[in-house]
């Protein structure tokens, strides 16, 4: 994408029928740190990488609770994401005040998409520079949507956005067919594994990622660091064992993890080193 004479205003079409400002906004999403989401029939899990500006600062909040049954993970301009989360929270509160029932996720994403579309058709506005993974539960089941700055939205079984998200997407593409019937814990493990893919060699610690879950009988909440670290430890220790026949200390997810042998260099086992991930 190169600079051209049709990209100054969002209200200017290019001869090829493109709105460059909108496409540039989608680039902003690709620059943000990764966020992933995956769902089963009864649960949806969101995960994100916590990027801090420096060692001295705290990391930006990228996962927001919107209501007991809806949560959102963002990638891109986090300030835009914060503002949109506030909008979503307000919509949920107003809907349940009027109808005494939770706002269906599908309705919320349409409202969000329409709000984004407005910014693509006003000369005095700019598109939101943030992609949102909306995870929610309603009467029709568990849902994961992706809302992009263009005003489009899609429903997904699993998705990843942000920088190095292709690695996570490849991981998810390989396994998504199993997600519908996954248990909650396996889903969380898969989410952590997908996050690990985006780290490309960096050690996975609970301090650099956040995982949040929403499900049947489980209101949206972020898992605490201790729990996440425990899960990380279980599949890391499984990888250190060269011999997959030794007793697995937790669910079957681990054996799959040991077989994956992904790019991260944990422990001493060099035999597990598999082919590097595609970028």
């Amino acid at each position, binding site marked *: 994408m190169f600079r051209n004479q049709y990209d100054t205003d969002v209200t200017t079409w290019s001869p090829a029928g493109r709105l460059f400002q909108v496409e540039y906004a989608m680039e902003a999403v690709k620059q943000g740190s990764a966020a992933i989401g995956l769902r089963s029939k009864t649960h949806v899990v969101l995960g994100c990488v916590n990027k801090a500006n420096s060692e001295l600062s705290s990391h930006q909040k990228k996962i927001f609770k919107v209501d007991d049954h809806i949560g959102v993970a963002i990638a891109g301009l986090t300030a835009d994401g914060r503002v949109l989360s506030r909008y979503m929270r*307000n919509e949920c*509160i107003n809907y349940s005040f009027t109808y005494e029932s939770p706002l269906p996720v599908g309705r919320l994403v349409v409202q969000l998409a329409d709000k984004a579309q407005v910014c693509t058709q006003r000369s005095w506005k700019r598109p939101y520079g943030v992609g949102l993974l909306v995870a929610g539960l309603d009467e029709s089941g568990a849902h994961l949507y992706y809302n992009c700055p263009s005003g489009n939205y899609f429903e997904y079984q699993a998705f990843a956005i942000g920088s190095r998200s292709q690695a996570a997407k490849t991981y998810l593409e390989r396994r998504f067919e199993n997600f519908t019937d996954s248990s909650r814990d396996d889903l969380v493990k898969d989410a952590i594994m997908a996050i690990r893919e985006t780290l490309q060699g960096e050690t996975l610690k609970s301090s650099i990622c956040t995982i949040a879950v929403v499900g049947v009988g489980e209101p949206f909440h972020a898992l605490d660091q201790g729990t996440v670290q425990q899960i990380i430890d279980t599949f890391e220790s499984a990888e250190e064992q060269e011999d997959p026949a030794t007793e697995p200390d937790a669910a079957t997810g681990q054996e799959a993890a040991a077989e994956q042998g992904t790019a991260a260099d944990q422990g001493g086992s060099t035999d597990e080193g598999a082919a590097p991930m595609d970028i």
Partner: protein
Amino acid sequence: MTKQQANWSPYDNNGGSCVAIAGADYCVIAADTRMSTGYNILTRDYSKICKLADKCVMASSGFQADVRALQKQLAARHLIYQHQHNKQMSCPAMAQLLSNTLYYKRFFPYYSFNVLGGLDNEGKGCVFTYDAVGSYEKVGYSSQGSGSTLIMPFLDNQLKSPSPLLLPAQDAVTPLVEAEAIDLVKTVFASASERDIYTGDKLELVVVNAAGIRREYMELRKD
């Protein structure tokens, strides 16, 4: 030519009584469950008590439609507070919010007579009492509703609270232990049910303490 009078009123009084007593480390909030209109009973099983926050409970008598609207309004505002501050509202904070919400409708009031009870940030019991337009005061105990004229003098006799105007400032909480306060509330409602026609059926009693919130029921006269 006489001034035209309204041929209907937007308000109704559904009767009932509410009481709250603050202790050193607990708070008791109670209300009867009878809902009436005129000389009739609408239901014997309607709760006038609403949990607004983790350690904050409100009991309201008056026009229950307005009470319900008020409860919903406060619940929505509390949710917004939680999103912004990442924590529950404290009882004194909720007390101020309730006052502001009531005064907001100063010229078409919520016909709701409220007592707010709970624990403050230090875990001490607190009770706030209101009029319909939001004038409020932190007290050691209070009663509102149709039976309040019968109940309040009895509570004054048993619990006499120091005036909040006195200096040096004295603690408003009652020296009674939780079990004694519960007993007192039950006695007070049993007495009020005898003479107030709008109070009776069942007593709903809520206790807020460090362990959380628990609910108790007691049968009252049905006549």
